């Protein structure tokens, strides 16, 4: 009886630990959700493993790195990182809102994540990116 209780406790403990690990892993995921209307309507939801983004950035081809726009980005990188860090550490709130009779766009910062939502007659887009991994990616490119 005592042994059974021990086993149950261990299983529960492991399940909790796995849950926490999964939650920590998923919390660094970015999410993009695109839903279009019309005859070719699609609905795609993509999880973006943002922790892999810095790693992926290491594989940017040399040719692409020679592009003038990319060089300009590299010149501005330090400032961009500082600006993103300030955004990440700053208070939460709606940063930009555009409202027209047909379209609605909103950019918000909520708990270290940047959320972008677009509602248009032909599409609905939701994007959520954790700023931490984005900053790390910009730093390593």
């Amino acid at each position, binding site marked *: 009886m005592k042994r059974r209780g021990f086993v149950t406790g261990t299983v529960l403990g492991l399940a909790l630990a796995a849950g926490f690990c999964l939650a920590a892993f998923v919390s660094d995921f970015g999410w993009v959700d695109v839903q279009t209307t019309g005859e070719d309507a699609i609905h795609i939801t993509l999880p973006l493993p943002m922790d892999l983004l810095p790693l992926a950035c290491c594989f940017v081809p040399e040719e692409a790195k020679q592009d003038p726009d990319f060089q300009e980005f590299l*010149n501005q990188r330090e*400032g961009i990182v*500082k*600006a993103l860090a*300030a955004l990440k550490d700053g*208070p939460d709130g709606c940063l930009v809102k555009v409202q027209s009779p047909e379209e609605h766009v909103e950019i918000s910062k909520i708990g270290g994540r940047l959320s972008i939502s677009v509602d248009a007659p032909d599409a609905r887009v939701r994007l959520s990116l954790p700023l931490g991994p984005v900053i790390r990616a910009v730093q390593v490119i």
Partner: protein
Amino acid sequence: MKRNLMLTIAITALAALALAGPKTKWVNVHVFDPSDQTTVDVRLPLDFIGAAIDAVNTPEFRQGKITLDFGTHGGEIEAEAKGEAEPKREGVVRVRHGRSEVDWVALLKQVKALPDSEFVKVDSPDAFITVNKKGGFFLVNVAERGEGKNTVDVKLPLGLLDAFSVDEKNQLDVKAFITKLGDLPAGDLVTVKGEADVRIWVE
């Protein structure tokens, strides 16, 4: 017992308020274009704006400073200076502005030192313009009389004038302006009404 509980709650609340620290200031921009019924609201923390300004690195705008181009041809501004405190000095002031002919920093410091008064009043068929200093604010009001009939109201706290600096390279320190905004009381800075409604304020 109940009194002790209330006292504890009050002390805890006060301590929480004291530990909360200074609140972040936000710069707000609201634009409404009636022609297409579109509203744009931008609301950014001052700290982020400061960092974003640092991020800009172009020949015209770098290290938080923007290079002003006054032009090489110069020009003339004719206005009526009317100081309430010194009515005898009323008259026409002719200012030739160009690359180095006007010391804007010194001029604005002088404005800050002057008593509340109306400095400029332009009454023409095109517009009615006044520039005042009143109640700790530098006020510019423009009322267009043309087709658009736009009105522009600028209300800058005088403390903001301290942050106005143009160096020998004609570079205006924009970052100093933004930083200074954090120290000043919240309120409207610019309001435009007419063809489009614009409001810029700090809260």
